């Protein structure tokens, strides 16, 4: 029987995920005079979920492979692997449809299915079913996961900085997702003037933030820029984390000459002045956000690698690693099953901090004119403002909104990162406060240990403490989720 709380979560989060993914791909091409009712039809537009075909292909391979591994390894039969394999098969069908195999013109970047939104919806439902089956098959582990998550959330909630960051970020993410509803994308066209150049703000909606040097609406640009700024930041941070965590864990676990090679590489990347390098690469490889993601990703990982390595060195000396070696576990198995979960809290908190750095980096590159000229980000807006001499007019309505948004978003991610740092790894907090080696501070991304306010300790939070484990009379088939 699946834990009651997990069931509720699945019921709540499945529609949320569906809504988010649909909004991300919601059609942009809406005529200027469309009313609100037409907007709802957009949810089933042919462009929704119309990804390039390699995305469903990757999903299909990953889901099916994971499902087959689980099927081979499972001790008792359950629906969980089958649900995964079904989801993988569905993603495979989606790939076949999207790549044009049906029509005989195969292309990995092809996107010629009009019912991609249907494929996406079914896939989300199948994955939700897989999670449901997992909860039913191993209720104890599900219960532990639910309990841990709630515990982390409790601690996180008591950290006012973290909550402030979460609210700010929720605001901007909502703005980015709802952009098609908030501002018509047609206003971003260079020919769509709404007034005179540099007209100050008025009360009319699209005039709230005045106009640009071309007489375009600053508000429309501002709202749509949130998408690029946030998504570039998040994807760059993802690349940086994968590289940094991988190299950091390998360096920390292996040590010796292999670790030395990894650390030498990290040192080289650490001393490379990232901005000149990024400028060279962006100037040479062209101007689009894929390149910027790649550049920011490959120049920002060394910090993560050093932090993760330091923590992996600590975990490596723990006793269960020795036990793992003694029973003949492979290096890969130990790194994946023992080191990674123990280092993970640090990686997670670090990733959030790297998002802040990546957003700043993207903004900087766009400001220098290296961004995609066809899309707007907050940095691109400031680039045009600078180029057109908005500071000398002074067109404050053009300069302030994007800058303030950047400050808020970066601040939000910094707050959230530090809050998670404290919540997820109390050991880290202790180590930092005890002084430690003199150069230890340089290994942290941000020297913010124990910010103002700070988190209460576990014992002070209602319901906190160490997991009591399932009670003696706990019956997995009759679990009420803690209710009488």
């Amino acid at each position: 029987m699946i834990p009651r709380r997990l069931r509720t979560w699945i019921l709540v989060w499945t529609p949320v995920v569906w809504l988010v993914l649909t909004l991300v791909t919601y059609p942009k091409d809406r005529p200027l005079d469309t009313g609100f009712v037409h907007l709802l039809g957009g949810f089933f537009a042919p462009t929704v979920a119309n990804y390039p075909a390699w995305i469903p292909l990757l999903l299909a391979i990953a889901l099916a492979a994971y499902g087959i591994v689980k099927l081979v390894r499972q001790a008792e039969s359950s629906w969980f692997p089958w649900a995964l394999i079904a989801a993988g098969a569905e993603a495979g069908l989606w790939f076949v449809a999207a790549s044009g195999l049906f029509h005989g013109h195969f292309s990995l970047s092809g996107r010629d299915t009009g019912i991609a939104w249907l494929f996406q919806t079914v896939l989300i439902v199948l994955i939700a079913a897989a999670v449901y089956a997992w909860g039913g098959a191993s209720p104890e582990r599900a219960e532990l996961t639910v309990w841990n998550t709630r515990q982390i959330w409790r601690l996180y909630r008591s950290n006012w900085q973290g909550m402030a960051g979460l609210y700010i970020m929720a605001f901007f993410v909502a703005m980015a997702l709802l952009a098609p509803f908030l501002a018509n994308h047609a206003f971003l066209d260079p020919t769509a003037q709404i007034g005179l150049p540099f007209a100050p703000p008025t009360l009319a909606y699209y005039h709230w933030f005045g106009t640009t040097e071309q007489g375009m609406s600053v508000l429309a640009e501002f709202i749509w820029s949130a998408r690029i700024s946030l998504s570039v930041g998040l994807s760059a941070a993802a690349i940086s984390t994968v590289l940094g965590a991988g190299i950091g864990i390998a360096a920390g676990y292996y040590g010796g000459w292999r670790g030395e090679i990894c650390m030498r590489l990290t040192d080289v990347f650490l001393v490379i002045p990232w901005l000149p390098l990024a400028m060279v690469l962006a100037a040479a490889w062209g101007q689009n956000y894929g390149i910027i993601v790649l550049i920011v990703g490959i120049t920002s990982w060394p910090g993560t690698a050093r932090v993760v390595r330091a923590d992996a060195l600590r975990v490596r000396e723990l006793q269960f690693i020795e036990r793992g070696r003694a029973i003949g576990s492979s290096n890969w198995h130990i790194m994946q099953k023992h080191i990674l979960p123990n280092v993970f809290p640090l990686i997670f908190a670090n990733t959030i901090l790297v998002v802040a750095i990546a957003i700043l980096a993207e903004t900087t590159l766009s400001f220098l004119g290296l961004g995609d000229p066809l899309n707007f980000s907050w940095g691109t807006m400031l680039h045009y403002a600078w180029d057109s001499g908005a500071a000398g007019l002074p067109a404050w309505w053009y300069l302030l909104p994007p800058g303030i948004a950047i400050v808020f978003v970066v601040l939000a991610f910094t707050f959230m990162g530090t809050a998670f740092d404290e919540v997820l790894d109390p050991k880290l907090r202790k180590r930092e406060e005890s002084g430690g080696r003199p150069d230890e501070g340089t290994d942290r991304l941000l020297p913010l240990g124990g910010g103002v306010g700070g988190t209460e300790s576990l014992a002070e939070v209602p319901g906190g403490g160490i997991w009591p484990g399932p009670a003696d009379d706990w019956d997995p088939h009759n679990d009420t989720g803690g209710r009488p």
Partner: protein
Amino acid sequence: MDKRRYFTRKILNALLTIVLIASFNFVLFRILPGDPARLLVPKGRFSMDAMAKQRANFHLDKPMWEQFIYYWKDTVQLKFGDSFAQKRPVAQVVGERIWPTVILVGTGTIIATAVGLVTGVIAGWRRNSKFDVITTNSGMVMYSMPTFWVCLIFIMIFSTWLRWFPVGRMYDPGVVYTSWFSQFGALLHHLFLPAFTFAITYMGEYHLIVRSSLTGVMKEDYVLTARAKGLSDSNVLWRHVAPNAMLPTVTLVMMNIGFVLSGAILTEAVFNWPGLGLLSYDSMVQRDYPVMQAVFLLGSVAVIAANLIADIMYYYLDPRVKA
């Protein structure tokens, strides 16, 4: 650790990193698209002969490994070829841009370090006081602000609205100064805004790290001993706590000085300050590869040198390294 061994190790490490960076630089500018020889030949005099001549000139007709050897020979002699845009030797172009950057970054760093250290020490000493909450949160805001945005806002406020400071450049164009004194005054007048913006963006970081390391040091036993001896608060703070809390700051300040180039690009570009940052921005806009290559190498070497100096300073500042 033995002094000689410590220094040898650090210096060898730095040299190895420089070699790796320089090799990376070689590869980086070889994988860029476009035929460099095509860029070197002036448009009016284009011919296959001229192309071949330029190729031979820059050893582009040799195999890769031979190019690599020539690259090293030239780099060691500081021969980076001619700038595409200015038609002058790169070493000369870069050389005359170093001083403005040093002046700007030096002033900015001194302001930032001084303010950041003092506020950081006071905030860490009186943790959770009103002063701490205000300075630390504004420090985080400063840390989150993009440099170029601060530049633009300051130009808007201080140059456009208040007209206190000129918009950019080092001197007003076309002005001949009668004495070195008035020239120095004009320099200061132009320097204030860029240096202040530069300082603002680093101040927050210094404040946060000093505060954090001070908090750590205050838990040490010798602080308790100092208090038990009956020393006054200010004595404990400035004689026993603050000097030890400075150590991580030394690393950070040196690291940032090393990154002077990256830090200065934005400030210099917005304020038209004729330093290395503006040079690298201009050479990016003009696709002036030889200059970019030299600036990139110079920037990396600056970071490595700054790190090395930090390590050497550590040896004398922190007795624990010797043990």
